[in-house]
């Protein structure tokens, strides 16, 4: 006990100078939180493994059955988009990671500790947004390059048409997918701030990711061109994939980028308003 007492008292003068605590400190703190939790590595590892593994499986299935395809399908075969199919699986987990980085604080009650260390709530929100964006972009870059390499390798082994990574189409795909990668994780994270739970934000963000893709094609052309094209997934795909295949939900790059930014501004704005006004 005696040593412990001297430890507090000796140190009191040293910590007396109060540093200014700013955005950098909050970001560093959020970074430490992220890298010190085992689940982060698990989720990211699973995302990369699922993306690459599923791409390999799908490419195997395509390669082994290609000779049985009809001539029209064979002629319109496009190697890049088939390699990207596995990204969907990794994308689910990255979106779930985005939700969980926020929702876990609410489910455990740790948000109170976080907010008592950083009472400036806008700053906390921005730190989470920056961190989730960076992580999503880095992981998605790895996944995209990984699925392209694996996908092309498998297709190549079946003597099918392939595209090198340095191909301008491939470069555009990698760049656009990486840059739009934060979209769904951030939407999920802001939903988590709004709903303070895990199940609801995951349901909503997965519905937003998949329901238009699954049922959108049933809609009349006008709806697809003017309404569904404004959904985040369609806009992101317009940026990344429109040069590879036609889509009714196509937007030109500038409006598509504007749609993506608008979704982020609206959802982050809503999270900011609720976070700052509500009790923790």
């Amino acid at each position: 006990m005696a040593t412990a007492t001297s430890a507090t008292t000796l140190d009191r003068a040293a910590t007396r100078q109060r540093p200014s605590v700013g955005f950098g400190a909050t970001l560093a703190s959020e970074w430490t939180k992220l890298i010190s939790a085992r689940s982060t590595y698990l989720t990211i590892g699973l995302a990369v493994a699922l993306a690459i593994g599923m791409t390999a499986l799908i490419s195997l299935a395509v390669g082994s059955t290609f000779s049985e395809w009809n001539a029209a399908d064979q002629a319109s075969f496009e190697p890049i988009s088939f390699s990207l199919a596995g990204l969907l699986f990794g994308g689910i987990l990255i979106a779930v990671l985005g939700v969980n980085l926020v929702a876990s604080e609410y489910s455990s009650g740790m948000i109170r500790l976080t907010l008592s260390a950083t009472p400036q709530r806008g700053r906390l929100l921005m730190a989470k947004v920056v961190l989730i964006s960076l992580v999503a972009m880095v992981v998605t870059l790895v996944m995209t390059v990984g699925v392209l390499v694996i996908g092309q390798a498998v297709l190549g082994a079946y003597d099918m048409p392939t595209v090198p990574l340095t191909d301008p189409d491939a470069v555009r795909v990698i760049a656009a997918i990486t840059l739009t990668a934060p979209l769904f994780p951030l939407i999920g994270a802001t939903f988590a701030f709004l709903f303070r739970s895990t199940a609801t934000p995951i349901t909503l963000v997965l519905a937003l990711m998949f329901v238009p893709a699954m049922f959108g094609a049933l809609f009349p052309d006008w709806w697809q061109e003017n309404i569904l094209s404004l959904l985040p997934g369609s806009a992101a795909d317009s940026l990344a994939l429109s040069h590879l295949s036609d889509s009714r939900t196509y937007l030109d790059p500038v409006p598509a980028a504007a749609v993506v930014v608008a979704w982020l501004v609206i959802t982050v704005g809503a999270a900011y308003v609720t976070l700052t006004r509500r009790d923790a």
Partner: protein
Amino acid sequence: MIAQAQARTQQRTWTFPRRLLADHIGLAALLWLGLIVAVTVLITAVAYWDSISVSGWDRFMSTIPHWYVAVIAGFLAHRFLPAAIAHGQTRRDVSVQLLIFTVVFAVVLAVLGVVGFLLERVLYGAMDWPQEVAAGQLFSSSGEAHLIFLEFASKFLVWAAAGALVGAGFYRSDEAGGLSLAVVWIPVSLAGYALGSQSGTPISLLDFVFDPPSLHPLLAIAVCAACYLVTAALAWRVIRDTPLRSKATWAGRDHARFGHSDDSTREGNGSMIEVRDLSKHYGTTKAVDQLSFDIKPGIVTGFLGPNGAGKSTTMRMILGLDHPTSGSVTVNGKAYRDLPAPMYEIGALLDAKAIYGRRSASQHLRWLAQAGGIPKQRVDEVLDLVGLTSVAGQSITGFSLGMFQRLGIASALLGDPDTLLFDEPVNGLDPEGIVWIRTLMRRLASEGRTIFVSSHLMNEMEETADHVLVIGRGRLIADTSMSEFIQLSTHSHVRVVSPQASDLAPRLDNAGATITVADDGALIVTGIEAAQIGDIAASHAIRLHELSPQRARLEEAFMERTRASVEYHAGDAEAVAAIFAETTQTTAEQEVR
């Protein structure tokens, strides 16, 4: 009393899954139903508009992503299991709760699937579209409709069960939902591909049965059953290895008293919390009602009141976590949010167990230090201070409540603040932990710090606090020094046990004493001293088996005060009566434990 308490615990065990179902599954199911209804209505509307036939969509329900079920079941089980373990009395309880959870979740979703199917039939009927299957056939015992119904129900059950089991098996992992997706999906998909399925992604063993690829259904069932058995084994391992919550923590709470430190060693340093007309209303409930007080520097101030009196709400408002409905609270003259480096000014221990993630104690303190702009070397110092150095690198998932409490105090001390806030710091601790916290609080106060500590346990406060704030139903009942509080509030009495009590009582009455009879037959005498009672008994040759003067304890003082406030606030007598009832209940519960 004990039987009653057991009944209460038993009841809690079984009401728990119900509450969880209401809170979470209800929401997930509603979203799911919303999805079904919205998609059905949209498709039908669009098809009507474009005059296309949708007979190909006759079974669109089966295209709705089943992974949703697995992911949500995984997350819910991940959330559910720790709480189930905390509430369960035996491992069988926990397993049964998990089973109930899984089945109810699956059944709810399957019923919703049928609702969606029936909704489709109604819409198709309205459109005069050909129907592969009519609604009436759904519950018949033959034909494809029967198979569809079976497919719904079994698919949901399998997915929910697999997801829940994985979520339970990995419940210590924070990514249970993602894992349930991966663990359920990957092996089954791999098996499907490896064995030559051409039907896309086979997502459950039932897909093999209802949409058979080149694979024998029995083989498919065996592959999938193996996957699910592994997840079940994982879940069982967790239930087996996780210690159930220990009980009987308060048995030794009336531990040896710790000597109060000398007043002269304290120095006031002007740090202070000021609360002015603070109110917090939730709807019509006034959790905190016009509260005004100052926390004086350099002493331990106890914040006393029964559960639900508004103590925690007040503390959260001090820390800027909750917004007051009206009034203000300042720390060192500023609102908490305006403090440039709050952790240097005030440290708080709210809920020590509210820590997320599988990380070590030092990693936990490191992010907190970074957030507060505190140098990293301080982490090792506070770990040493609370005696956690030897386990600093271990994952906190294995920590006991006492260790969490120490970690919480370490985080409050990170910024070496002048003011410390502890919310129910001894709750659930063993006697050793209680003495440790009590000693620490006294020492921190003797270093000139301001300590504000809440408790619903009167005895505990008596041992620790110099000054006391008593709160009931959100209102301030007393703001006084501890000794004054006890002195002013109660009279001391003498407990007398005698085989000739009926002879003694009238004689004491004659001497001017007031007598009541305790439950065990002892006489509780007020108004005259013990010595006088002894003399009276001796002069009449009355034998005494016990003659003990009782000092008023804080608990009694508190009850006295809340009782007295009936007179002060005549209009609010009910409220005070309710406070009193809560207090007795709390005490009774502790006695049982």
